[in-house]
């Protein structure tokens, strides 16, 4: 089967998705993705030039709500699930670029 994605591609996609793989995993995921993409290639049998894309099952438009503020969560409820918090805020390790 032709290689649609290389291991390098897989590592790039992993970066976009904030996932990391060791060598063995990268091989495996490259292989899996190529299998699936190979199957997906089947869609190219269809000519879809004049077909509109569908992003929603139903044609619903312009769903809005009134601009009315209501009670928010308490700070305690907002942060109680956080692995780390400090001064009512979510604590994260330092940002290094």
């Amino acid at each position: 089967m032709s290689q649609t994605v290389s291991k390098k591609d897989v590592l790039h996609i992993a970066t976009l998705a904030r996932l990391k793989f060791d060598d063995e995993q990268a091989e495996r995921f490259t292989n899996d993705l190529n299998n699936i993409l190979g199957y997906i290639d089947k869609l190219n049998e269809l000519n879809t030039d004049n077909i509109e894309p569908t992003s929603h099952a139903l044609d619903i438009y312009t769903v809005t709500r009134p601009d009315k503020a209501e009670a928010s969560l308490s700070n305690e409820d907002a942060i109680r699930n956080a692995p780390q918090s400090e001064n009512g805020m979510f604590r994260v390790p330092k940002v290094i670029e």
Partner: protein
Amino acid sequence: MLGKTLKELSEALNKKEFSSAELTQFYLDRISKYDGEICAYNYINENVINQAKAVDEKRAKGETLPVYAGIPMALKDLIIQKDMPATCSSKILEGFVPPFQGTAAQLLEDAGFLCLGKLSMDEFAMGSSNETAYRKKTRNPWDTSRVPGGSSGGSAASVAAGLTTFALGSDTGGSIRQPASLCGITGMKPTYGRVSRFGLIAFASSLDQIGPMTSNISDNAAILSVIGKYDKKDSTSLNVAQEDYAKYLTGDVKGMKIGVPKEYFAEGIAPDVRECVNKAIKAYEGMGCEIVEISMPHTEYAVATYYIIATAEASSNLGRYDGIRFGFRADADNLKDMFYESRSQGFGDEVKRRIMLGTYVLSAGYYDAYYIKAQKVRTLIKQDFVNAFEKVDAIICPTSPTTAFKAGEKMSDPLQMYLSDINTISLNLYGGCGLSMPCGFGADGMPVGVQLLGKYFDEGRLYNLAYAFEQQAKLPVMPEKLK
């Protein structure tokens, strides 16, 4: 208490044949007896017995109670029940206790139901065998060496094993219908927009829908009557009137046109499954239905289309699991590592595979070739349904190509696993309603399910068709050894 419909349970409670506490304890006892082997429950609500007692007290005082007051049920572990853990069977959500109530859970609560606990599933609903669950890999009650199907495997198994009165599941590409079929119960995927998705942890937003999983048709209709309500909190919920589906259950199906799409009976369908489904079709013919052979030519493209759209949406929906506001966080001394480590340690392989595929099909240079292409083919698949429903009232076909397979059998080949959803996926792309109900047993003695597909908001008709068959077929709904 087993084998009673919800209506019968409600009447028995009102007549004080047994109390809510007794009923609840009955299920708790069954859970402690059987769930060690079946592994359906991720979480058991310790407090439910007290809630049942509170209902009994109110009943004793003669207070007016909602119709299903004090009847216990259980939820798939991606449906939010306030203050109860919601893990999606994923390590990354361990410890998350939602501080808010989901709409489906609220509607059930308003109707009087009590929540026994949360049911295992494939991780983030990604899987067809419940084997991608981080902890509880649920097994099929009919044969615990086999899978219950997925992703609502815990829901299907718990209903089949009598570990709850009914359960809610969710269906993105067959996740209610396929496990219902494999476990010999009834599962309905309602029309997209019928049940609010507020409180449903998203896999693929344009396809996901909550639905009831029950041991009989009238319970299923009863539950959808409760949860099938327009919700302002879900922009994709359609503002149509709530219905009492019980009124459709007449058993009179004479003159209805049922389509048999040849593409759903393709090579991969096992002979014993085919035979059972053909018997069901014959039964409908006998009841005065007109059976019409139809064609849905784009069916073979559904799996490919689905795996692009669903994974693209999932790759975005699952970005929020970053270890900051809830759930699992890996130790890391800088932010970048925290993102990578939390997500890499927190997600299982199948979830990663789908995030990777979804990220790839949306990435620069591939968006048109994959994502837009899939959305266009979705239009064609939708059109197949629209065309079919111009000719027929409902569509009948096998739910799953095979009966429940052995645990471990398909885990090494993701693509083979994806293809087990071949008959259920198209419906989600269209957005209509679909129901799976038992129609017999395969050569291996495992349940076989038949699927009825309907147009938008035509659940009532499907329920009536299913009810007519159920009344005639009178199939056993629970393994003998569990009674």
